[in-house]
């Protein structure tokens, strides 16, 4: 009997001690980390959206942790302890089958895009393997007053009727919109400096240090940057989605010699814009903080020379000049 007490009791005591040291005490300590500057609790609707996120297991494919590694800079600044103050349950995740969502509210601010993507991800990202969440939407004969139906591309829309989000979908999209990193003060550089600095480093990694020749334009790099930052809305063929995202093909701003407006839109973003007579309610995010002058020049040049466009190419210096003007 004594031996049983030693083995069962002794090992369990040791284990309990280790559980206390490696789990309970760190848990207590880290539960009390104060909120980072600007980190706010969620609103009631956003919390509801977070519950929809949890119930449907979004975090099995989407992480919410930006690591202090080069490859994570596209998702935002490195996450800090203070970011997680109001995040219970924690949704850091362990797999990145889909992109990280820590800063998705800033990276993709367009709720129109989010709704189309949620209804059927392949409507905006053809290669996507995310499930469709059509069951978070209703198909109605006519959208009720004050509700905008989701502007789905024809191929993905139901044969008849309008698609409107349910309350759960609205809550989920509100939650995604709330996922915005707050700028870190101090050492990392002023305000969004941390992100601005991310740009050049990413580029260096992407093309193994090959800086583009002065005035030249790296088509492969432009295409890659367009895919990573623009094609989710404007699509790989540049035609956008009718009624949701404007086409860049033969567009008055893109296919034009004076690039001032084109550069400014990429730097500052756009909302409620009227393009070719159509008003678009979706929001385009600003890229001034996340992309370098050279990268924006590559994107702008890619757009000005693709899909039959013949706009005059720009260089990084022009982007720098517009950036200085824009403030």
């Amino acid at each position, binding site marked *: 009997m004594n*031996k*049983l007490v030693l*083995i*069962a009791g002794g*090992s*369990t005591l*040791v*284990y309990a001690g*280790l*559980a206390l040291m*490696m*789990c*309970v005490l*760190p*848990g*207590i300590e*880290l*539960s009390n980390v104060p909120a980072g500057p600007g980190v706010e609790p969620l609103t009631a609707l956003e919390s509801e959206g977070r519950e929809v996120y*949890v119930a*449907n*297991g*979004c*975090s*099995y494919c989407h992480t919410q*942790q930006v*690591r*202090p*590694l*080069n*490859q994570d800079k*596209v998702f935002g600044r490195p996450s*800090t*302890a203070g970011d*997680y*103050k109001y*995040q*219970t*349950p*924690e*949704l*850091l995740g*362990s*797999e*990145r089958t*889909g992109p990280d969502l820590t800063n998705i509210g800033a990276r993709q601010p367009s709720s129109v895009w989010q709704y189309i993507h949620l209804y059927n991800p*392949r409507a905006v*990202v053809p*290669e*996507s*393997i*995310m*499930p*469709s*969440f059509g*069951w978070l939407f209703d198909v109605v004969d006519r959208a009720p007053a004050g509700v905008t139906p989701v502007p789905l591309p024809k191929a993905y829309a139901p044969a008849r009727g309008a698609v409107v989000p349910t309350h759960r979908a609205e809550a989920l999209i509100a939650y995604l919109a709330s996922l915005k990193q707050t700028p870190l003060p101090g050492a990392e550089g002023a305000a969004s400096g941390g992100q601005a600095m991310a740009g050049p480093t990413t*580029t260096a*990694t*992407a093309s193994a240090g090959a800086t583009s020749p002065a005035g030249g334009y790296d088509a492969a790099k432009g295409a890659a940057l367009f*895919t*990573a930052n623009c094609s989710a809305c404007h699509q790989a063929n540049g035609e956008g989605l009718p009624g949701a995202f404007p086409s860049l093909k033969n567009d008055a701003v893109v296919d034009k010699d004076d690039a001032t407006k084109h550069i400014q839109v990429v730097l500052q973003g756009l909302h409620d814009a009227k393009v070719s007579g159509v008003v678009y309610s979706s929001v385009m995010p600003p890229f001034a903080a996340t992309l370098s002058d050279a990268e924006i020049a590559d994107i702008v040049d890619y757009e000005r020379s693709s899909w039959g466009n013949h706009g005059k190419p720009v260089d990084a210096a022009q982007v720098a000049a517009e950036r200085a003007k824009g403030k």
Partner: protein
Amino acid sequence: MSTNVTAQHSILSDKDDRSLVSVFSAYVVSATLWLVFATGVGILMAFKFGAPEFGAGAWLTFGRLRPIHTNATFYGFASIALVGLAYYVAARSSGAKLYSAALARIGLVLFNAAAIAGTVSLDLGYNDGDLEYREWLWWIRLIFLAALVVTAWNLIVTVSRRNSADIYLSNWYIIGGTLWTCIIATVGVVPWFQYGLGQVAVSGFYMHNAVGMWFTPLALGVIYYTLPKLLNRPIYSYALGVFAFWTNLVFYPIIGSHHFEFSPLPWWLQTTAIVFSVAMLVPVWGGSSNFLLTMRGRTRDMMQSYPLMFIFVGVMSYLIGSTQGTLEAFRSLQEVWHLTNFTVGHSHMTMYGIIAFAIWGGIYALLPLATGRQPGRLGMALHFWMALVGCFIYVASLSIGGTIQGLDWVHGLPFIQSVVDMQSYYVWRGVGGSLMFLSHIVFAWNVWRMCYGPGAVPSPLESLRREEAVA
């Protein structure tokens, strides 16, 4: 030890023996049903990576099936199978009767109640927070905890009534694992220290320990009993087994945070986890070399016996999979592999390669002894080879694909490129997974034959005497 067992039978009554056999088979049958269900869900999910619209709708959406698959595999299949084996091993190796068959049946009902309630509620969208391996609502996890407590009690009293002063090594692992898991289940459910980043620390501890301090010790306990019995020779070194027991106990609970490397968890916590991940080589190499040295020089016997081949694969996976786990913990490799499908490959090499193969080896070795009914050799062969080849394809495709996925990110390619590059590896994963699933159907047939099939003998006790007289 085996002399003890055989001698003991003469003083045990036939009735006690029958109740142990019925408890053991009930656990195995129940676990088998969970295995087929959980891996069927796994197959459905594997298809979804190639055809995302396959099985649309809320109830079959990936994010709900994923926790159903993992929890049903862990707490339905593996837990129930290992506890069934543990009862048999504890009673036989102690030369005692099972303390309470009724308690064991209550435990089985509780395990199943938790797994059914957990599965249904997850599918309805009641997920406790996407926290891996503890997605069941808190009250369902308390049912599971109750099942553990009942099991621990039953095992301890059984072993306390043993017929010798010594406690056989298997029972160290079995009783230890069950008691430690009661602690794991408790700290996982108590909410007071689980806010924000605090919960991340708890998640790292929980997800790691729920696997390595529950399934691994019980599987090792089963191997420590089954291997000497099948080979009819003692374990190579009893002392080495004891050494591995204590080092495993001290090192393993410290390394959970390696699941959150580069996260905002304190850097020292992550570094400590990495250091002890390396230290884990001591119990892993100690344990697996103990098994391999027990098998030394008996290659021909090994090839003749499917139970031994299952256990051999389990031991090799323990050696390779756990060593891989140590390597994965290094920051330089985590930089590439973390968050990719490489991790999914690793978890299948370990949970499937170690745990499932050890369970199958144990069942094929011990269940026929208990019931006196044999599975067919062809059935065992089909199960073994389909499971082995399937698992190999599964792990190889996700390891290669996961590495490419990680390198795509390092090279700064647009994210969607990593999704596109995974496609062919997802297809191969589906091929491997399908073979694994088919092998489980064959296993279910084999279990049926071992429990209810032909070849019945008048008394299970008689057959035991005959079989074990050889041992």
